[in-house]
């Protein structure tokens, strides 16, 4: 399968996502420049981490206007799998492909460290190889990962089972001390109603090789590779439409 990795000016985890897809998982991978008008036949699109356009206005606020976002949106609407990691998640929020917004971390400081995450849902193309309740240890690196949505929207997200990962302690229990950023309901990852667009603050591409100190991020890539292998593209699109 082919990964398309979008490069905005200011993206800085684009090479990391590329390396994971290509060198660690042995898949095809291609960079998609933000001024490009098509996805070059990508089967899955990753919006990588970084500081697109410097993030001087609001994280992701400029990137959503990049030309590449039109085909990304069309791809997502057709049911194509899209993963936004960190800044990519922030861009998906600004683009309206996922609901809600990001605030600054509760401690007002950037935080880079390993966190524990509990898998909440496995019926998305990016968590299908995980099991519900499984606790993953994956690094974060962000200053604005404090997910916010109004109470009624949060209620709807929970009712629709759109919360994919939550910050927890080592045992998988949600408590305030284990949240690195103060996200509402400890939300670390979300999907859209159609479940094909996923945004996550943690960086799975940083946890795919034992040499880097952990491999819990592999399950995210394993999921998408298995999803694709298990279903031909039309079927995948059908999954997108059926929900």
């Amino acid at each position: 399968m082919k990964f398309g990795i979008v490069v905005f000016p200011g993206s800085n985890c684009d090479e990391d996502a590329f390396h994971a897809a290509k060198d660690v998982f042995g898949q095809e991978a291609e960079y998609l420049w933000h001024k490009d008008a098509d996805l070059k036949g990508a089967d899955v699109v990753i919006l990588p981490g970084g500081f697109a356009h410097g993030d001087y206005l609001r994280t992701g606020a400029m990137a959503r206007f990049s030309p590449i976002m039109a085909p990304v949106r069309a791809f997502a609407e057709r049911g194509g799998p899209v993963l936004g990691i960190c800044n990519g998640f922030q861009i998906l929020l600004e683009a309206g492909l996922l609901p809600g917004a990001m605030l600054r971390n509760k401690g007002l400081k950037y935080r880079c460290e390993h966190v524990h995450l509990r898998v909440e849902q496995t019926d998305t193309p990016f968590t299908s190889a995980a099991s519900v309740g499984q606790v993953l240890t994956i690094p974060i690196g962000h200053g604005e990962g404090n997910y916010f949505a109004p109470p009624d929207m949060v209620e709807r997200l929970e009712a629709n089972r759109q919360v994919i990962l939550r910050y927890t302690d080592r045992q998988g229990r949600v408590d305030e001390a284990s949240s690195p950023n103060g996200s509402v309901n400890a939300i670390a990852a979300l999907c859209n109603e159609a479940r094909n667009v996923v945004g996550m603050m943690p960086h799975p591409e940083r946890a795919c090789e034992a040499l880097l100190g952990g491999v819990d991020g592999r399950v995210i890539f394993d999921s998408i590779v298995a999803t694709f292998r298990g279903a031909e593209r039309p079927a995948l699109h059908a999954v997108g439409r059926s929900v």
Partner: protein
Amino acid sequence: MIDPQVLERHGLKPDEYERVVQFMGREPNLTELGIFSVMWSEHCSYKSSRVHLKTLPTEGPQVLQGPGENAGAVDIGGGLAAVFKIESHNHPSFIEPYQGAATGVGGIIRDIFTMGARPIALLNSLRFGDLDAPGTRRLLEGVVAGIAGYGNSIGIPTVGGEIVFEPEYAGNPLVNVFCLGIAKQSDIVKGVASGVGNAVYYVGAKTGRDGIHGATMASAEFDDRSAEKRPAVQVGDPFMEKLLLEACLEVMQTDALIGIQDMGAAGLTCSTTEMGSRGGAGVEIDVSLVPQRETGMTPYEIMLSESQERMLLVAKQGREAEVERIFEKWDLHASRIGHVTNDGMLRVKDRGVVVAEIPNRALTDEAPVYRRPMSEPEYLRQAQQLDLDTLGPAKDPNAALLSLLGSPTIASKKWIYRQYDHMVRTNTINLPGLGAGVVRIKGTDRALAMSVDGNGRYCYLDPYRGAMLAVAEAARNVACSGARPLAATNCLNFGNPERPGIMWQFARAVEGIGAACRALDVPITGGNVSLYNETDGKAIYPTPTIGVVGLLEHADRVVSRRFQESGDAILMLGEGRGELGASEYLKVVHHLVRGVPPALDLAAERALQTLLVTLAEDRLVRSAHDCSDGGLAVTIAECAFDTVGIGAEVSLEGVDVSRQSGVNVAAALFGESATRVIVSAVPEQVTAVLRHAAAAGVPARVIGQTGGSRLRIAVAGAIVIDQSVDEAERVWSTAIDKHFVQRVA
């Protein structure tokens, strides 16, 4: 008109002005005077330090590029080079901590990618006043946020560093930043201008009035009016630099470039002069073509501005369109501002009219060089005296250990490095806080280890030995990770060189660095000198910081400080000699800065470091940690931290405990004798470790084993330390955090 006041404002001495007039054969105009003043400033000309720096070893088969270029480069095999350098941004960081530190990071990154290397790691070495002192927290928060703000955004991981808190830095903190990049050896680019008629391009941020006379500011002492100098501090834009970085690396792939240099200190002046000088050519530019952020800027202001994120480059004739196209792709506009000449002059025009014309040579090679008077400072003899019998009864070792672990200099720096993205680029295989920073090199089996170290208190009490110890410690940290030390870079932070005592400290420190670098075979490939680190006439501790880079042949054999499993043997490589002079223990427990720093036998140090590399390569050790600040007891505690509570049972023999005061016990536990490393090994491999050590001539013995949930250390058969790992780790890990009340948004 050029009168004494004008000269003073430009930091030029009357005799220096005489020299200017001699070279010019006439009075310079104000623009020319400004150009001379920045190029002849201490910061750019190294006029006080040059004669000493010349004595440093800078060559070796591993060195591809020594001092004199934007950064040094060493061979790391496979046709690759590691390009690295350390630089200070002390003065700007004191005046405006966030921007000062941020632009320091930006500057050193530019030095690295200017060489054609992709920057892959950052380190920093910081010094502040006591954490309790007023102002320190504001400075620390600002500096850390500035480093984070720049490094995180541009996407280069900060993989390690060191921070020391001493009252001597309260009025003059130190911010030294190190960057390392990787290039193909064949792709290394130099900062030269050559080929008459070749186009000179300006690319990056527009020029504003910020930072005018930054280099001159960095060459003066502080006083209570320093805050007025804020306009001389520049403002950083990491996004612009990220674009520049990507665009420049792309342009370099085309082979359409002759040379490139960043506009750092002294901006356009320094880059045009140095590029012309290195290429044996001249550069002519027209300032009216320089992109400007403000209106009405004079040629003087344009030439002296230190606006950030700007590069100067020379393109090959006929390849200009190619270069311009790549910058356009990144939404950067490359402006052609001049061309290369063959007359060796820096010629500046404004709308075609010559406004400055100076021979490059006068600004570079012919800049003043001083052999400043030196004499041993008066405090030294007295301060070196230390009579252990006058210390009184030693403090309970358990309490002393906790005091040391809670001392901010020794305590966990997690509160700080957690604010730095240390994992971006997915290469970091030894995270901050675990020893040297180690990054694997993708596409190879290899990895690079790097460490910055320095001990100002040691250097205050003996600059020669202190500087040697800094080199030894940085190289030892690199060797502990399993990497063979290759080369070094230095950042020399001192007070006012016009004082003989300071100049003596400087000269002795440089001698010490030279001796250690020669003995350990880590040539100096570049660096930076920061003088006039004084506030109200009070100098900082003389503080050379040394960055050492080493190579691991097999990334997966990297070693960290952490114990791996219970039941492993704990060995000490090297020997304690009960030296307490200049130690953190004396400072923290007895509030004394006295004595002489530990002795250093360079041959023994070399043998130890070689041994460490062999042990890692042969997978014989599971952890390795250098004994330094706080001595053996602190080292063993640190080996137990971040392991989910693997304790240790250690017994030290051969200590003379006859002295009633217990001072010998304290010296055994907390003395900082150099050339010592604590390693752990599975029991079956102990014999092999000891055999290798014996063959290398390194003293080695088993001193205990890992396991349990306590740290227990016996000296001459009596248990003197018995502490729960959890409790000790709590003290160590919260010592810095607790100074910062977390604000909840």
